[in-house]
């Protein structure tokens, strides 16, 4: 649940000292008390004629007159009520406020009863209006393709993008860096587009190609490679909070087919699926009219695999796709952006009108056969368990009738003839062993103790327990469902008697103790069975065996959502409380995009209409948000520094016209992502060197205006993939079920590793992989000593070093030759003389010098950072 801070007051009064500012004091100390203790009766329902949600209302007061007298707390009726000074007027009825709360109210009144101006909580029946000023916010303006500006240095221009960048640089009197070396450039474009380094031969080829098309050729090759989708699909999966399992609080709970959604995303990028269709498929893939409909349904994993929190789906849809923080309006109208609470619940209603489903990727008869087989096996198992449990209970009763003889035997130290030997041993262990949790057998070895009498107790106890079970079953209406159990008022044995029963008759299934003395578990029970009983068990088991063998493999399916039969609107939860419901919020799109009230959705849950409203050229946010993300992944910094918040509290774009140009081009080229990449990476702006420059740095240390390329640390996926690649071990198999990254034989690209919502892989979390429990705004790059331990000591890096050393040692006989080979493999270049000398010195002694040397090369800054 999002509950937003009263940040308006922070913005206005950053230096908060207690009561230093009256409005601040009101927001911090008074309004929360009024909201919590008074609003429920004294807002819309105005009990006693009083409302307390404005200063005016308090001054006006209720039936007894004004509630406050500013400056005079002693004379204020409100204080009389909360101090319980008048026995007829004690407020709030739920119990007296704390002394500090009362004191705060008093000092607020004494200080003049200042009132903040932040938005009030949503009220039943209140009408929210969006002002013209709000509608004119930049991000809500239609996307128009701006005319690329004129610049002084025309020679710098490669694509229209450059005009926007250079115009800003010229305006800010910044001089862009020279172009990066071809080596740096090809490495940059490889990591950007496919997340892998170029091989030495690729670099050399590019360096040798002097044509003006050299870069374009490389870019086209990379965009056509399946590795492109593996890189860019993963970016989307950050937004989609993709996970291969659920956040189960006690045990692992993997999804069977989550990876099919992951592969669908990768495939969509590789196929250059238009971005609008890509979105629509994920929102309503089951409802879109499309020739290849089955292909779109897999996209529904976006919601089918989502974390199961109320606001997640609304949040991922609005913040992730449109950069608008609708989940902030869960408890009150958005304080800054034009989002009434109603909008949140209007969208929530769309999702609560859906249910999880599956789209089988097998013929109906195969699915049916699998389900039948599975049920058949479960039924048979149950049958066997019940049979054995019945026999075990019967046997326990038989043995209970021999209790006295068993105890007497243990006293004598020898089993009487005819008694079961194993049961005798159990009795012996039980009687002579560790402390019991009941007193019944405390004196078992004394003369005063009567085994015969105890036997009567045992038999009566078992009878009592059976009777209780029967009664409880009646109380539960014949159902042993967990919820019924938790809420039912059931009978039980007294504590001591229960423990005796447990120790003798318990099956040990529910608790962490061995089965009771008299209860023989199935594996120990069979020797007691004979004749028809034994034969029956053999037959039951043979049948189970037959059914298990005949069990077909699980059929594959997509995780999907579907509309429920009877879609319903949700009601507004006032201040986010489920116990305080307001008006119904008709399922509809956001108010800010409608003239008056938004048109309610009419088709089923409304998902298709929602999809159409989002994947739409008229929607000013969709294309801008995606263009901004794409730019950010290419440049290491998006134009809007808060890619998931284009609202008032987000950052403004550094290059607003450029953002619009990119968004317009995205739509103009039929939402082609590849076309957008191409236009960006072929610009001059993209090709600058990462070198620093003192005068530029002094003016623009954060490189807001893009006078240079940003140096970037590799994300964990390209890092791990690179270590595998340069050691010659990367398995490039595409798609399929995930394998944990901790599995040392997993040499596939990291995007195919198992992603866990419950317990994120140690290496992933070490290197800033986003938490898949919520939509991730953007990757962050930290650098910590613990990360360096990974290079120093991890088995993964060590294994790569061994593999690399083998390659290196096999490449040449002489040391210098091997060092050259190593540099070529790892960095795609020749080493300098100094580097050769250092290497030669290093490998001249020690054990396994080439492995150690290889590890050093793999741990270097040159490998980890991209210029």
């Amino acid at each position, binding site marked *: 649940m999002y509950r937003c801070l009263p940040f308006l007051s922070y913005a206005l009064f950053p230096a908060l000292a207690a009561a230093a500012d009256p409005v601040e004091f009101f927001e911090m100390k008074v309004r929360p008390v009024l909201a919590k203790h008074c609003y429920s009766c004294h807002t819309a329902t105005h009990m006693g004629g009083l409302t307390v949600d404005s200063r005016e209302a308090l001054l006006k007061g209720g039936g007894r007159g004004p509630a406050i007298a500013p400056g005079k707390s002693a004379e204020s009726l409100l204080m009389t009520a909360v101090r319980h000074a008048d026995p007829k007027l004690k407020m709030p009825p739920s119990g007296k406020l704390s002394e500090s709360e009362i004191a705060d109210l008093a000092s607020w009144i004494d200080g003049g009863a200042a009132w903040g101006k932040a938005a009030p909580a949503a009220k039943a029946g209140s009408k929210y209006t969006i002002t013209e000023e709000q509608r004119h916010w930049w991000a809500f303006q239609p996307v128009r393709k701006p005319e690329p500006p004129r610049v002084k240095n025309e020679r710098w221009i490669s694509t229209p993008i450059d005009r926007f960048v250079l115009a800003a640089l010229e305006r800010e009197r910044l001089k862009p860096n020279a172009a990066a070396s071809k080596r740096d450039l090809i490495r940059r474009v490889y990591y950007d587009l496919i997340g892998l380094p170029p091989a030495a031969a690729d670099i050399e080829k590019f360096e040798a190609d002097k044509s003006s098309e050299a870069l374009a050729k490389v870019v086209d090759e990379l965009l056509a490679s399946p590795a492109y989708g593996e890189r860019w699909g993963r970016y989307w999966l950050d937004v989609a909070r993709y996970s291969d399992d659920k956040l189960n609080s006690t045990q692992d709970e993997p999804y069977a087919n989550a990876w099919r959604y992951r592969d669908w995303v990768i495939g969509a990028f590789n196929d250059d699926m238009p971005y609008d269709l890509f979105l629509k498929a994920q929102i309503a893939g089951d409802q879109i009219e499309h020739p290849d409909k089955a292909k779109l349904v897999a996209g529904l994993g976006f919601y089918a695999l989502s974390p199961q929190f109320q606001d997640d789906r609304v949040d991922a849809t609005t*913040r992730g796709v449109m950069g608008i923080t609708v989940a902030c309006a869960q408890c009150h109208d958005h304080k800054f952006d034009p989002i009434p609470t109603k909008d949140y619940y209007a969208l929530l209603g769309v999702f609560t009108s859906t249910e999880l489903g599956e789209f089988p990727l097998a013929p109906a008869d195969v699915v049916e056969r699998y389900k039948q087989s599975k049920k058949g096996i479960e039924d048979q198992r149950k049958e066997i368990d019940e049979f054995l449990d019945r026999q075990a209970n019967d046997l326990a009763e038989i043995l209970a009738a021999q209790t006295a003889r068993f105890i007497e035997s243990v006293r004598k130290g020898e089993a009487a003839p005819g008694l079961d030997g194993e049961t005798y041993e159990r009795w012996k262990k039980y009687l002579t062993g560790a402390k019991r949790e009941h007193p019944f057998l405390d004196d078992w070895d004394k003369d005063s103790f009567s085994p015969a009498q105890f036997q009567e107790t045992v038999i009566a106890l078992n009878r009592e327990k059976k009777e209780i079970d029967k009664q409880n079953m009646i109380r539960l209406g014949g159902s042993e469902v967990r919820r019924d159990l938790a809420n039912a008022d059931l009978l039980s044995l007294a504590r001591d008697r229960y423990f005796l029963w447990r120790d003798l008759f318990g099956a040990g299934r529910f608790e962490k103790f061995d089965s009771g003395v008299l209860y023989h578990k199935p594996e120990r029970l069979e020797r007691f069975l004979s004749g028809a009983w034994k034969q029956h068990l053999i037959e039951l088991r043979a049948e189970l065996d037959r059914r298990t063998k005949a069990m077909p493999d699980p059929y594959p399916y997509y995780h999907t959502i579907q509309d429920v039969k009877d879609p319903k609107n949700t009601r507004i939860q006032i201040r986010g409380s489920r116990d305080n419901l307001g008006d119904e919020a008709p399922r509809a799109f956001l108010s800010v995009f409608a003239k008056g009230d938004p048109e309610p959705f009419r088709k089923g849950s409304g998902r298709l209409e929602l999809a159409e409203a989002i994947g739409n050229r008229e929607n000013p946010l969709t294309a801008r948000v995606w263009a901004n993300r794409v730019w950010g992944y290419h440049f290491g910094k998006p134009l809007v520094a808060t890619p998931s918040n284009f609202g008032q509290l987000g950052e403004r774009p550094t290059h607003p016209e450029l953002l619009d140009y990119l968004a317009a081009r995205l739509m103009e080229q039929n939402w082609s992502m590849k076309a957008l990449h191409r236009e960006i990476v072929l610009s001059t702006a993209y090709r600058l060197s990462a070198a*620093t420059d003192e005068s530029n740095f002094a003016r623009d240390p954060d490189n807001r205006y893009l006078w240079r390329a940003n140096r970037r640390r590799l994300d964990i996926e390209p890092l791990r993939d690179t270590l595998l690649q340069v050691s010659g071990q990367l398995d490039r198999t595409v798609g399929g079920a995930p394998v944990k990254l901790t599995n040392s034989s997993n040499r596939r690209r990291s995007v195919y590793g198992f992603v866990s919502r419950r317990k994120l892989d140690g290496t992933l979390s070490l290197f800033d992989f986003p938490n898949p429990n919520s939509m991730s705004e953007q990757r962050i790059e930290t650098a910590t000593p613990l990360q360096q331990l990974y290079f120093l000591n991890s088995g993964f890096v060590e294994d790569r070093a061994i593999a690399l050393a083998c390659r290196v040692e096999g490449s040449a006989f002489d040391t210098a030759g091997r060092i050259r080979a190593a540099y070529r493999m790892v960095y795609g270049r020749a080493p300098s003389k100094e580097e050769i000398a250092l290497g030669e010195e290093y490998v001249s002694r020690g054990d396994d010098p080439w492995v150690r040397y290889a590890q050093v090369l793999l741990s270097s800054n040159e490998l980890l950072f991209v210029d």
Partner: protein
Amino acid sequence: MMTRRDALRTLGSGFGMAGFAGVAAGSDQPLEPKAPHFAPKAKHVIYLFLNGGPSQVDTFDPKPMLTKYHGQPAPSGNLKTERKTGALLKSPFEFKPGGKSGVPISDIFPKLRDRADDLCVIRSMYTERPNHEPSLFMLNCGHVLPGHPSMGSWLTYGLGSFNQNLPGFVVLCPGVPVIGPQLWTSAYLPSIYQGTYLPNNEKEPERLIQHLRNRHLGADEQRRQLDLLAKLNRLHLAREGSDPQLEGRIQQMEIAYRMQTEAMDALDVSKEPEKVRARYGEGDFARGCLIARRLVERGVRMVQVYYGNGQPWDNHDDILIHRKLAGTADAPMAALLEDLKASGLLDETVVMIGGEFGRTPSVEVSGLVRVQNGRDHNNHGFSMLLAGGGVKGGTTYGATDEFGFKAVENRVHPHDVHATVLHLLGLEHTKLTYRYSGRDFRLTDVAGNVVKGVLA
């Protein structure tokens, strides 16, 4: 707000002053100690989490009326909790006054009781929900839903840590508590502030921390490797021109190298004298408490120790199990307090002891229990202990009703505890914010008041 000792500790184990300044300027050292908002009373936090929900009326909140009315229905009825409960159930344990202050603690914690003069028992805790997950999230992350940073993450984000050779926020649990790593997540804060989890059922230090030890290389051999790496990185740096990112990583390699020794030493409880280990006793929790002490001694900002895997204190069936659990919790908690006190560290460490909620004074009668001698979850009232720097020891604060069901006097919400602990560490909780998803977030959400009554 760095004292001379802190500075020495940092620098002695870190790098030279020049390097220090350079790295700090590049903000590549987000764990460097940072100045608090005002003069702090304490610098470290040790949070001993008795997960599962220990019962207040059997531990720190004696209720004579409960004994008197044992077996009878509560006159005002039972409050709504997770499951059905029945008549009032007296505690099977006796309470006795401890220390000079006479703060009463039950017989299952005899050693902790002897340290009563160090303890402030908050008896009026409450949370919103009678379920483990939301209450665990609330106590740890200040919200009932997942996706928010843990208290330790906020502290290290706000204050850094004193030892750059060790993680700033360490979490110990033999196995994992219910929910697991989401309880020590940094969520939207940079991931360096995430809790470093150590499974303290492992006895060997190198099994406690990821990649802590090289399986094949000796220290000398690794030193040679690092020397070569540093030279190659310097050549690279010379080609690229000065860059704080690149320089920062060269220094971090050195820190990582030292961390191997330092962490190995900190986590190796066998280095403690036999007599000391004997006072902590046997078991995972004892080892956890001892490691916590050793980490704080070395400058770690916050250490959290979960009592056990899953939720051991969740005794729905039989409250007598509390005795067994306390049996392995009592000695380590007392020994930890004693050691911290002896070394003076207690003055600069806040020790928190408690679970995610308490238990009902009424007996649980739901069909899920087999012995009707236990208690259901109770979010309406429970106890939590504070000790150490800036805390008023030997006192109780707040009260539950006569049967111990609901906090009625000076009620304290986890937000208030968080605000108070932050206050003790010199942070104004309303100002420790992080901008994410369009708004400023904080540990205490939109609530929280410093509980003045527990301050010394």
